[in-house]
C-alpha cells in the first residue's frame, strides 16, 4: 500500500489509537503523546478492570455450581426407571407430547414488554445528565414528550383490548 | 420577427391542446375545421417567415430553458431549414384539407387531428431548433403521434408495423442522444450555431469520430439508410394516407436534415472518416431499392421502397462533403418530399376507389377509368424517376455530379465508382416506375363499374404539390439559391 502525504494530522480528526505510520491496525498512542497513553491504561483498568471482577465472580459462581453438581453426583443414587422418567401429570399417564401449543396472548405480553422496556433504555442516560447545569426545563419537557408517547402506546393497547386477559 | 418563429410552433400546439381538452361532442364535428385552420395559419406563418428571410432579416429566438442541462430554447431558420419548414407546413395543411372530404374522414377525428397537429409541432421544431437537445426533443416528439396514427388508424398489420417503426427509431434516438450529449459535454455548449462556427475546433478526434458514429448512426435509422430500412415499407403500408404522406414527405427528411445540420458541420473530422461509408451505403440503398421495387406488387409498398432509393441519392450528395453535393442533397430532399407526398396522396385516392393498392388486383386501365387521376399518377411517376424539367431531376442529377468531385480528403476513385453505380440506380428507378405505369395506368379497366374521377377537393389538395414540382423543376434556383448561402456558411467555404 502506497501512502501519500498524510494531510490531516490531529487527534480530533483521527482516532488516537490509529497510527498512520504502519499498515494495519496498531493500537498505540504514537501520535497523541503521553495523554493518550494514559487514557489507554485507564481504558484497560477502568473498563475491563471493573468488569473483570464481574467475570471472576461469575467464574467463582460457576465453579460453585460445578463443584456442587459433581459432589451431588457422588452423593446421590442413580437408578432411573421408565416410570420415573415419564413426564409428571399428577400420576396419570401423560397424554400427547410435552410441548403444547401456547396461547397467543403470551406473544402479546412479550410484545408489550419489548416495546416499553426497550424504550426505557433511553431513560437512563437522560436521567443521569438531567441534573447537570445547562439542562433544565427544556430537557424535562423533551422527556415528557417521550413519556407521552410511551403513555399513548399504553392507552392505545388498553383501548384495543390488549390489556384485558380473560 | 421572432414572433413568427414562436408562432410556428405555438399555433399547432394550441390547436392540439384545444382539441385535447374540448368536450367530445363539440370537437367531434369541429375537429377537422380546427385542424385545417391551425395548419393553414401555420403555413401562412411559414410563408411570412420565408418572405422575411427573403428580405434579408434573420429571426432568432434564444432563451434559457433548462440551464441545468444547458438546454436553450434556441430557434432560427436559415436557408437549409426554410425550405423544409415550408414543405412541412404545406404538406400538413394539405393533409388537413384532404381529411375534410367525407370519403377520407377518419374515425375519432378529434384524436386524429390532435395527433396530426402534435406531429407538426415536432416536425417544425426539429427543423427550427438550434440547440442539440432541443433538436433531440423535437425529434422525439414526432414519434408518439406517428406511432399512434399508424397503430390507431392504419390498415392491416398496423400494430406490429407501428411497433417496429417506433422501436427502430428509438434505438436510433438512444444512440443519437449519447452522441449529442457527448458532443455537448466535450464542447461545453449545445448551441448548434456556436458549434458549427467552431467547426470541430476544440473537439478531439476521438470525440468527433465517436460522436459522428453515434449521431449519424441514430439518424441513419430515420433516413433510412440501408440496411436499417426494414421498418419503412411496413410502416408505409400500414399507415393511413395522411400518415404515409407525412412519413415520407417530412419524417425521413428529419434524418438527412440532422446530418447536414449537425453531424457534418459540427464534427468535420468524424464526417470525413465516415463519409465514404455513408456514400457506399447510400448507393447500395439506391440499387437495392430499385431491385426491390421491381419485385413489388403493392403500389404503396413500391412508393415506400422508392423512398429508400431517393434517400440514397440524398445520402450520396451529403457524403461528398462539398457544397454542391449538399445543396443537391437538400434539393433532392425537398423534391422527394413534394413528389412522394403527391404519390402517396394519389395512392390513397386509388385505394379509396378500388379498396386495394395491390397492382394485381387493380389490374390497370386507370387512365381509361379515371383519366384525370391517371394523368396525375403518370405525372408523379415521371417526376419521381427524374425527368428533366421536373423537381426530381435536379437533386439527383446534381448529387451524382457532385460525386465526381468529392471533397479533397475523400477518396476520389471510390466516389467515381459510386457515381457510376448510382447512375445504374437511376435507370432502375425509371424501369420500375415505367413497369408500374404499364401495369396500373395503361390498359383496359378490369371492371366496367364507373369510378368517380378526381374530385374538386382532391384537385385543390394536390395541385399545390403539382405546382411545386413544376416550379422546382423549371426554376431550381428558387431552392438552390436559398440553400446555397447557408450551406457554404455552415461548411465554411469549400
Amino acid at each position, binding site marked *: 500500500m502506497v501512502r501519500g502525504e498524510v494531510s490531516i494530522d490531529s487527534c480530533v480528526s483521527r482516532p488516537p489509537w*490509529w497510527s498512520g505510520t504502519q499498515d494495519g491496525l496498531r493500537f498505540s498512542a504514537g501520535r497523541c503523546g503521553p495523554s493518550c497513553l494514559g487514557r489507554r491504561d485507564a481504558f484497560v483498568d477502568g473498563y475491563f478492570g471493573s468488569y473483570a471482577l464481574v467475570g471472576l465472580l461469575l467464574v467463582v459462581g460457576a465453579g460453585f455450581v460445578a463443584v456442587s453438581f459433581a459432589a451431588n453426583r457422588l452423593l446421590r443414587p442413580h437408578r432411573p426407571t421408565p416410570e420415573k422418567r415419564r413426564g409428571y401429570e399428577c400420576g396419570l399417564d401423560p397424554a400427547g407430547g410435552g410441548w403444547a401449543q401456547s396461547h397467543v396472548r403470551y406473544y402479546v405480553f412479550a410484545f408489550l414488554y419489548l416495546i416499553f422496556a426497550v424504550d426505557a433504555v433511553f431513560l437512563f442516560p437522560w436521567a443521569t445528565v438531567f441534573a447537570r447545569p445547562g439542562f433544565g426545563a427544556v430537557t424535562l419537557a423533551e422527556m415528557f414528550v417521550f413519556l407521552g408517547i410511551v403513555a399513548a402506546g399504553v392507552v392505545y393497547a388498553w383501548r384495543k383490548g390488549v390489556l384485558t386477559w380473560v | 420577427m421572432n414572433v413568427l418563429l414562436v408562432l410556428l410552433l405555438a399555433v399547432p400546439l394550441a390547436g392540439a391542446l384545444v382539441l385535447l381538452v374540448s368536450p367530445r361532442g363539440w370537437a367531434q364535428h369541429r375537429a377537422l375545421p380546427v385542424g385545417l385552420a391551425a395548419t393553414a395559419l401555420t403555413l401562412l406563418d411559414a410563408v411570412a417567415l420565408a418572405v422575411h428571410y427573403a428580405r434579408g432579416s434573420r429571426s432568432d429566438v434564444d432563451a434559457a430553458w*433548462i440551464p441545468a442541462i444547458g438546454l436553450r430554447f434556441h430557434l432560427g431558420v436559415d436557408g437549409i431549414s426554410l425550405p423544409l419548414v415550408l414543405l412541412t407546413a404545406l404538406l400538413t395543411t394539405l393533409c388537413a384539407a384532404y381529411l375534410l372530404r367525407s370519403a377520407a374522414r377518419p374515425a375519432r377525428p378529434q384524436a386524429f387531428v390532435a395527433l396530426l397537429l402534435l406531429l407538426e409541432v415536432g416536425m417544425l421544431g426539429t427543423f427550427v431548433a438550434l440547440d442539440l437537445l432541443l433538436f433531440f426533443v423535437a425529434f422525439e*416528439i414526432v414519434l408518439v403521434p406517428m406511432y399512434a396514427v399508424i397503430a390507431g388508424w392504419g390498415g392491416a398489420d398496423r400494430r406490429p408495423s407501428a*411497433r417496429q417503426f417506433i422501436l427502430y427509431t428509438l434505438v436510433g434516438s438512444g444512440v443519437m442522444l449519447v452522441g449529442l450529449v457527448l458532443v455537448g*459535454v466535450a464542447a461545453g455548449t449545445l448551441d448548434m450555431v456556436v458549434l458549427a462556427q467552431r467547426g470541430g475546433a476544440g473537439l478531439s478526434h476521438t470525440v468527433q469520430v465517436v460522436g459522428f458514429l453515434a449521431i449519424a448512426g441514430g439518424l441513419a435509422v430515420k433516413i433510412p439508410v440501408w440496411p436499417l430500412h426494414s421498418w419503412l415499407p411496413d410502416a408505409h403500408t400500414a399507415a393511413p394516407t395522411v400518415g404515409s404522406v407525412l412519413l415520407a414527405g417530412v419524417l425521413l427528411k428529419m434524418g438527412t436534415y440532422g446530418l447536414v445540420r449537425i453531424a457534418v458541420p459540427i464534427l468535420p473530422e468524424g464526417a470525413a472518416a465516415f463519409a465514404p461509408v455513408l456514400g457506399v451505403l447510400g448507393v447500395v440503398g439506391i440499387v437495392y431499392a430499385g431491385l426491390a421495387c421491381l419485385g413489388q406488387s403493392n403500389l404503396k409498398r413500391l412508393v415506400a421502397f422508392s423512398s429508400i432509393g431517393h434517400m440514397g441519392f440524398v445520402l450520396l450528395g451529403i457524403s461528398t462533403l462539398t457544397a454542391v453535393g449538399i445543396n443537391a442533397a437538400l434539393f433532392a430532399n425537398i423534391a422527394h418530399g413534394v413528389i412522394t407526398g403527391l404519390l402517396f396522396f394519389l395512392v390513397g385516392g386509388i385505394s379509396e376507389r378500388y379498396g386495394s393498392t395491390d397492382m394485381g388486383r387493380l389490374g390497370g386501365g386507370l387512365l381509361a377509368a379515371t383519366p384525370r387521376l391517371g394523368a396525375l399518377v403518370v405525372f408523379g411517376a415521371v417526376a419521381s424517376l427524374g425527368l428533366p424539367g421536373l423537381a426530381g431531376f435536379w437533386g439527383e442529377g446534381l448529387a451524382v455530379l457532385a460525386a465526381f468531385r468529392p471533397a479533397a480528403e475523400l477518396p476520389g476513385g471510390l466516389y467515381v465508382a459510386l457515381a457510376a453505380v448510382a447512375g445504374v440506380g437511376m435507370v432502375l428507378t425509371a424501369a420500375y416506375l415505367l413497369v408500374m405505369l404499364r401495369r396500373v395506368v395503361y390498359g383496359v379497366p378490369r371492371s366496367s363499374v364507373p369510378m368517380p374521377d378526381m374530385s374538386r377537393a382532391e384537385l385543390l389538395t394536390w395541385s399545390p404539390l403539382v405546382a411545386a414540382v413544376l416550379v422546382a423543376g423549371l426554376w431550381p434556383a428558387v431552392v438552390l439559391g436559398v440553400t446555397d448561402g447557408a450551406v457554404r456558411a455552415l461548411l465554411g467555404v469549400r
Partner: protein
Amino acid sequence: MTGPATTAVQGVDLLAIAPPMLLAAAALVVLLVEAFRPAARLVATTALAGAGLALAAELVLAADVLGGGRSRATFCLPAALRGTGPASCSYVVDPFAVLLGLVALLAGAAALLLAVPEIRRTRLPAGEFCFLLLTAVAGAVALPAGRDLVTLVVCLELVSLPVFALVALRRYDGRSTESALTMFLVSVASTAVMLYGISLVYGLAGSMYLDRIAVALNPAAAPPAAAVGIVLVLVGFGFKVSAVPFHTWAPDTYAGAPVAVAAVLAVVSKVAGFAGLVLVLVLGFGGFAPVWAPLVAVLAAASMTVGNLVALRQRGALRLLAWSSIAQAGYVLAPLGALAGMAGRPELREELVAASVGYLVIYALMTTGAFAVVAFIGRITPGNDGTDLDGYRGLARTHPVVGVAFAFFLACLAGLPPGLAGLFAKVVVVRAVVDGGHGWLAVIVAVNTVIGLYYYLAWAVRLFAPPAADGAAFGALRRPIAVAIAVAVAGLVLLSVFPEPVLAGWSLTGTG
C-alpha cells in the same frame, strides 16, 4: 454518559424539524383517534390533515431555506466538543433536504389518498395503516437532512420498520404475509450488514458526523478496513434501494402488498434510501470514491439491464412496476457511479448529485402517478384485480382522462415525449455520466431506455385498444385517487415544461 463537565445541550431549530415532528405528532393523534373513535373516515381525515400541516410547514421551511439562500442547521456539536474540526451538525435543512423532504411528503400523502378507498372496501385497519404510513413518511422527510450516521440509521429504520408492518397489514391474505416476511428478512439482514459497516467506519474515523468522517477517512491515511466498512454500508443501501443483485425481495413484495403500500415502497422508501446513499457516499466517504464508485456503476448497470429485461416478460401490473422500479433505480445510481473522479472537481460532484436527485424526484412523481392508476383499477373494480396488464384494455375509451393520464405517466417513465419530464431526467443522467467520463455507462443507459420503452409502450397501447370482450367494466373513479392522479399529472406537466427547479443543482451542505 460520563462526558466532560461542559454542557452538551444543543439548540433546537424548531422550524427545521417541524415537518417530521408534525408528521409524528399526527401519527400519534391518529392512533389515539383510532383508539377512541374507530371510524375509518375520521381516521383518514385526521391523517390527511396531519400530512397537510406537515406539508405547510415544509413549504414554509422551503421558502425560508431557498429564499434566504442559507441552510438551517440544528443539533450541532457544542463548541466545547468541536475542537478544531468542522461544525458537525446532525440535522441540516439545505435545498437537498427540502426537495427530497417535499417529495417524500407528497408521495406519502398520495399513498394515503390511494389507500382511502382500499381501507373502506377491505378489512385494512385504518388507524394502524395511517399511523404506520405517517411514521414512515416522517422518517423519509427527516432522512435527507441527517448529517451523521446515527440520525441516518434511525431515520432509515423509521422508514423501514413501519413498511414491514404495512406490507403485512392485509392480515388474511397469505400472499401479503409471505411477501412481508421475505422483505422483512432481507431488509433486516441488510440493515445488520450496513450497521456493521458503520461500526467499522466509526472505529476508523472516530466520529459519526459525516463531515468529520470525510476528513478522517482518506485512502492515504485509513486502513483497508475502512474500504470494507464502506462496501458493507453500500451493500446495505443496495438492499434498501433494491439495486440488482439485492433486489430479489422487491417483485414479490410489490405484488403481495396493498397497492398503496407498494407505492410507499416504490417511492417513499426508495427516496429515503437514495437520500441516505447520496449523503453517506458523497459527504462521508468522498475520499474513497475511487473504491465505491466503480461498484456503484456496476450496480447501476446491472440494475437497469436486469430490471428492464425481466420487466419485458411481466404480465402483471405490479410486478412490472416492481421490475421497472428496479431498472429506474439503476438510472438514479448511474450518476453516482461516475463519481470516481470527483476528487478535484467540486462542480462535477454537484452536477452528478444533481442529476441523481433530479431523476429521483421525477421518478417519484411518475411512479406515484402510475401507482395511483393501478390503485384505481386494481382491487377496486370487482372482478378485475388490476394485476394483469390485459385488464387495462380500453381504459382510455371508457375513462379518457384517466387513460390519457396513465399513458402520460408511462411516457414519462419511458422518457418519451410527451413525457418530457422523464426524457429530461434521462438526458440529465446521460449527460452527467458522460461528463463524469463513463461513456460506457451512458451507452448502457441509452440502450436500456430503449428496452424500457418497449414494455411501457406495450402497456400504454393496451389502454387505447378496444376492451376485451369479457373484460369487466372499470368502476367509478373515487375522489381521493382522482386527486392523487391530478397532482401527479400537474407536477409532471409542470416539470415537462419547466424542469429547472428539479434538475438545477440542489446543493448538498455538509456541515451547515
